């Protein structure tokens, strides 16, 4: 089982869209996929105390092989409850571990913050997938993020247990700056930056209306193909989760 988290310090850069579409692509490829926004019915206190398992909370989606945990407003207190819990950063990893018997991929959709939950995610993930808008400012946030994730481990970057993959999101091909960043960044950061990039497209926003991954209502569009290509890259790097 591989745990992939979509994460960014900034909000509104396409984390949830990536999580939804990549999870659907993985499921379509035949993998059993569990996607969660780490919001568990029954309240976060039961989650943190591990009286309730993520498996109990999983429900099927309309996509074959893909289950998820529905969003729950009660999760808002998770940070506070983690704060009161011994070994709090390990809680998420311990919650995810039992999923290994049922799922091949776990896709976590993280909130745009740096908190105890974030640190818990970093303890649990194998792949940290970071969407970045191809602007100078956003690219700098990647450096900040890398500094944070490497610094989060007392022994430094070499012992970081997960890999970071950056992909460009909300790309506007009409903008010169976007084109330039897209052209130079993969070469500057080989292995770090994915070749696939997701275009700015209204069809991505339509996911909220359709409440479904793009592939299920707009397959063949550039955005759908971009997510499929991104999944292919990930699958190529981790063929046997």
């Amino acid at each position, binding site marked *: 089982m591989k745990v992939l988290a979509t994460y960014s310090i900034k909000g509104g850069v396409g984390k949830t869209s990536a999580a939804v579409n990549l999870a659907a692509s993985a499921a379509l*490829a*035949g993998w*059993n996929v569990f996607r969660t926004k780490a919001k568990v019915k029954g309240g976060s206190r039961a989650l943190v105390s591990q009286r309730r398992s993520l498996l109990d909370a*999983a*429900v*099927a989606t*309309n996509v074959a*092989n893909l*289950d998820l945990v529905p969003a729950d407003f009660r999760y808002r207190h998770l940070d506070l409850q983690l704060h009161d819990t011994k070994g709090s950063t390990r809680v998420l990893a311990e919650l995810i571990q039992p999923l290994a018997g049922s799922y*091949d991929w776990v896709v976590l959709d993280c909130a745009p913050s740096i908190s105890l939950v974030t640190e818990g995610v970093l303890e649990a993930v194998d792949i940290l997938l970071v969407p970045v808008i191809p602007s100078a400012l956003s690219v700098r946030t990647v450096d900040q993020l890398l500094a944070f994730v490497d610094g989060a481990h007392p022994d430094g970057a070499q012992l970081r247990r997960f890999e970071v993959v950056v992909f460009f999101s909300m790309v506007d091909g009409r903008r010169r700056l976007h084109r330039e960043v897209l052209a130079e960044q993969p070469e500057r950061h080989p292995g770090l930056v994915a070749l696939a990039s997701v275009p700015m497209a209204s069809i991505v926003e339509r996911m909220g209306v359709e409440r479904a991954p793009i592939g299920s209502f707009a397959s063949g569009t550039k955005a759908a193909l971009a997510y499929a290509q991104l999944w292919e890259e990930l699958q190529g790097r981790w063929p046997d989760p």
Partner: protein
Amino acid sequence: MGRAHTQPADPPEPASTKPGPVAFTFTAKASAAKLAARVGGRAGRPFEVERTWLDTFDWRLWNQGLALEVDRGPALNSATLRSTGDHRVHWVQRDGEVPVCAEDLPPGPWRRSLAGVLGIRALVPVGSEQVQKTEIVCADGEGKTVATLMWERVGSRPDQGQGRERPAPRPVARVRLIPARGYDRTARELAALLVEHAGLVPETAHPLEQAATHGLRPGQDPGKLRLVLAPGMRADDALRHMLSTLFAVMGANEPWLASAPDTEFLHDYRVALRRSRSVLKQARGILPQEALDEWRPALRDLQVRTNAHRDLDVFLLEFDGYRAAVPQVGEGDLEPLRDLLLRHRRVEHAALVSYLDSEEHRSLLARYRAFLSSRAGQDRPVSDGSTPDETRPVDAVAAGRIRRAHRRLLRSGAAIGDASPAEPLHELRISGKELRYLLELYGSLYDRAVLGGVVRELKALQDNLGEFQDCEIHAQRLHEYASELRATADVPTSSLMAVALVAQVFIDRQAQARAAFAGRFTAFASRHNVRLLDRMLTKGGGPG
């Protein structure tokens, strides 16, 4: 291991009551459209598919509560692994081929789901049916699928109606309720609604139980001996029953020997053949001498035809173990040996297939079948004087034969010392095998728990003797193969050395087995075990 079915004989309880068993398979007279309207679901387009159910010949998926159905049709190709209990989807693959062996499983869901289940066995078709299917999606108010109803009208199977009267088409459709994860309560409510308001009738049988082909029955391994003897039964009847049962096991496996999806068809065929020979060997005084004189050599010859093939199967099955045993050997050094083994196996397989397809073999089967069936009726031929024990009760005969075989084993084993050559150990192995077969063949006459204890002790001894002899054969054959490879110009010296190193591993293992023999035999021959066997034979007691 039992099935995980939960279908009850009675209609499910109403949803308002406490959780209880729920039916997931029903029969319906209503059309898909009417059913969809009744449950407020959305019926999709109907598909015509040819469905093939896959499992190993010994039902490893079924025994894990799984069923793999492959639907092929003009508009739909899919493979779905489901729970047998509630048809819940474990995963589904659209399009693509279904791998059949664990070694063929590509990284991915196939390997994750099946590698640990298939083991040595391959997936083979175990059931088929023509299906017109319509999916009825039941969604909640937000359009979220909470359950799916699979409405299926089942036509005749491809293997039906050939030379036989076609079965009457089923007047009703099968409906399968497939709950979505997390919506179990909804599924329960829907199951109740289907019965109480849509007129569906719960079905206790899983669809595969109706679709099974080749005379197979889900969960029943055709290669496993299921022999029940009644105490007091005539000894000749009992032996004929044994031979007929073993012949049926051979018959179940023989059609698969040519295509050989895995090695176990031949293995099970050989075990049944070996057991048959053992029965015949013990049949002196019970079955006519004339018949024994004919069938003992005939079955031995048949067994001999399969020996080399099986040896090569074992070599190839264990091949990866060779590499692990000699880590100092370079990558690829053993490949010439593997190629040689594969070449030899191809030759042996072709020879076996050719023989099985021959008039000689067909004639042998026909005569053996006639021998078995001619004695099954009431018109018993007048005894020629060679069968004084034919009317004795089988339990009395069995006890005598088992005691005799046990005594022989104890006597032969006690005569083996540390300095004894290999030959007496090989003979002891054969004696152990004969006792084992007797215990298995007559096992239904005895208390199952005690029998299990006796067999366990014997098996420990047999494992030791088997290891001793197998290692010797392996080492000997490897030297022969090395000679053969040496005669081949393009085989590098490193490969010849690698084969010699593997042979040495077997020689060392044989020495270890030899050193362990005395302890194993002493344990087997202990007073406790002798008493255990004696108590079992004295008490009898049938399957406890």
